């Protein structure tokens, strides 16, 4: 049984390394974006693969809202050992998922001190959500924002063709 803490350590190291990778003391906004994209796309791959391993009844969920509820409860518990704290929607394809104590941010100081660094720690998870949704048949854009650590908010905008 692989210990849950290993993922957290690996994730932290990935964030640290992908940033040091550029070795540019002052990366321009373009380069920062590239690293965020790399993390996000890795998360996407993992989310897709996780989606394929979900119990069968999940794959049969037809209602979009049910899928999002599943993400907030079951997937979040499976991945982060806790449920998402709240889910809001405008019933027109936009969902806001709020976690008041996101585990990947908890080890950082709480409050406003590292708010600027927070996006690096959220990119992978955004991709993870996007990937899992993709396997469940929903194409989306997922972004995250932090007001004060360790609370954060994921925004899912469903892309309808």
């Amino acid at each position, binding site marked *: *049984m*692989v*210990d*849950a*803490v*290993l*993922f957290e*350590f*690996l*994730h*932290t*190291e*990935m964030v*640290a*390394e992908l940033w040091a*990778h550029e070795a540019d003391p002052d990366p321009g906004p373009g380069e920062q974006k590239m690293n965020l994209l*790399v993390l996000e796309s*890795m998360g996407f*791959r*993992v989310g897709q*693969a*996780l989606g394929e*391993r*979900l*119990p069968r009844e999940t794959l049969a969920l037809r209602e979009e809202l049910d899928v999002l509820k599943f993400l907030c*409860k*079951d*997937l979040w*518990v*499976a*991945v982060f*050992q806790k*449920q998402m704290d709240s889910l809001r929607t405008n019933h027109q394809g936009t969902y806001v998922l709020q976690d008041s104590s996101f585990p990947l941010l908890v080890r950082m100081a709480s409050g406003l001190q590292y708010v600027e660094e927070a996006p690096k720690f959220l990119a*992978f998870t955004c991709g993870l959500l996007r990937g899992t949704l993709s396997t469940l048949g929903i194409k989306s854009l997922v972004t995250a924002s932090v007001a004060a650590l360790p609370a954060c908010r994921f925004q899912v905008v469903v892309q309808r063709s």
Partner: protein
Amino acid sequence: MSRPAHRRPEYHKINKDLFVLTYGALVAQLCKDYEKDEDVNKYLDKMGHGIGTRLVEDFLARSCVRRCHSYSEIIDIIAQVAFKMYLGITPSVACNNSSRNEFSLILDKNPLVEFVEELPAGRTSLCYCNLLCGIIRGALEMVHLDADVAFLQDRLKGDSVTEIGITFLKKPDEKKYRRKK
């Protein structure tokens, strides 16, 4: 009343798969970034080292290991306690030399390669699990032990077993008994 969500067997599986899948995505990304296998291996080792220096704290906090008085005791703890705690496996241990500073961990099962059938094309020198070597090396460093850690054999490369070699390096002022911090 149904069992709490996180105890359901399928979610246990997702949690275990999360690390293994993430690791796979990382290796795939590194293979994109680096052409040479040695560079990927080095990078994995470096990342593992960073993880190991922090993981050892988690390990010491959660296990009740006693102070070790020999290298072979330390290796036993790595194999029987640490590997068991973090990866759910118990590699067997062999001592490779009479001065008792060279050891091998032989991995019968390896969760990291659960979804890997073979190395990617053109990547014959890739040490897929090199993160593990870095982790062991980083963790030992934090308890003031220098060691070389590397894969001696790898099933993914066609060897019959997967074997990690750990060689403790003697420092000039090494004491016979080491205190674990």
